[in-house]
């Protein structure tokens, strides 16, 4: 063998085709992991800059999406049909958006 190394392909994150083929289940997984990291970041910033409205909004945004997608995971863990996972993704994204709108506009947040 010219090449003694064993060659194994992996899904290429730099390939636009892979991203075009990515479906809701994978997006839900990705959004939840990314939102977890962003929560840590925005929460840390929030401790040092507590009364910045844009920062409060961003923190609320990522918490809303992380919580909504977490509930989706919880429902599937409890036995919700896997056939519903795509619909649950869309429904919970919409619920997160609605929750965010409601909390931001109607709850007194000390702004």
């Amino acid at each position, binding site marked *: 063998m*010219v090449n003694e190394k064993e060659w194994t392909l*992996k899904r290429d994150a730099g390939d636009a085709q892979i991203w075009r083929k990515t479906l809701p289940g*994978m997006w839900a997984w990705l959004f939840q992991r990314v939102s977890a990291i962003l929560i840590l970041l925005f929460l840390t910033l929030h401790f040092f800059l507590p009364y910045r409205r844009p920062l409060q909004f961003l923190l609320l945004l990522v918490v809303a999406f992380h919580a909504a997608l977490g509930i989706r995971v919880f429902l599937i863990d409890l036995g919700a049909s*896997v056939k519903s996972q795509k619909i649950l993704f869309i429904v919970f994204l919409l619920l997160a958006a609605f929750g965010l709108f409601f909390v931001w506009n109607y709850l007194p947040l000390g702004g």
Partner: protein
Amino acid sequence: MVYTFKIFRFDPKKDTRPYEQEFLVDLGDEEKITVLDALFKIHQSQDKTLSFRYCCRLAMCGSCALVINGREGLACKTLVKDLDSGPISLKPLNHIPIIKDLTVDLKSLINRLKKIEPYFIPRTPSVEPAKIKPTSKERQTIGLNTECIACGSCVSACTMMHWNPDYIGPMGLNRAFCLIVDSRDLTDKRLERVADENGIYRCHMEFNCTDVCPKHLSPTRGIHYLKRQIFWQEMKNLNPFRRGRNR
């Protein structure tokens, strides 16, 4: 009609690195031309060194599983006309060692299956065929998950395979699920064998396996069923008032 195929090429005996080769193929106006038909044409008329696997040509055996335009699928079942316009990219399955071009070494898939003893071991020997009612709860729980053709598409699509090469994978766990739910199966330790970081807990519910399965099965469904089984078993073990609990 002329189609452009960009095919992954790599011969470990000659090439130092993989490369992509472009082929122009006139497939005519026939509507039911598959990717496998195109590969046959390329092999016959343009490059006899192109290596790919096939067998039944009917989407029954799973031999021709490839990554077609970034998505796993069976070459014999994928119609060329259903693909995006533009060059059609063909690559071998991910996470499985490559033998040559589009052919992968299935030993690694089989070794993952071996970890869970993927064969039925009867609890009670019998000379009579089993009578299984289609309406039985077990049969309905297993559902179509027994129809797995072991094509490896799910293993290729699962990104957890990338992070943990020791992960049993959706194919093996699906098989374990079918056997664990079957009360006729003897091996009581099967559930324990899959309940670790290389088993069911490596699944993070991306559903890639479910999306790409050519038989429309859901290994994720099976894996999450097993997670619930283990969870409730552990909850029962925590109950100090459970009868028969060893102290």
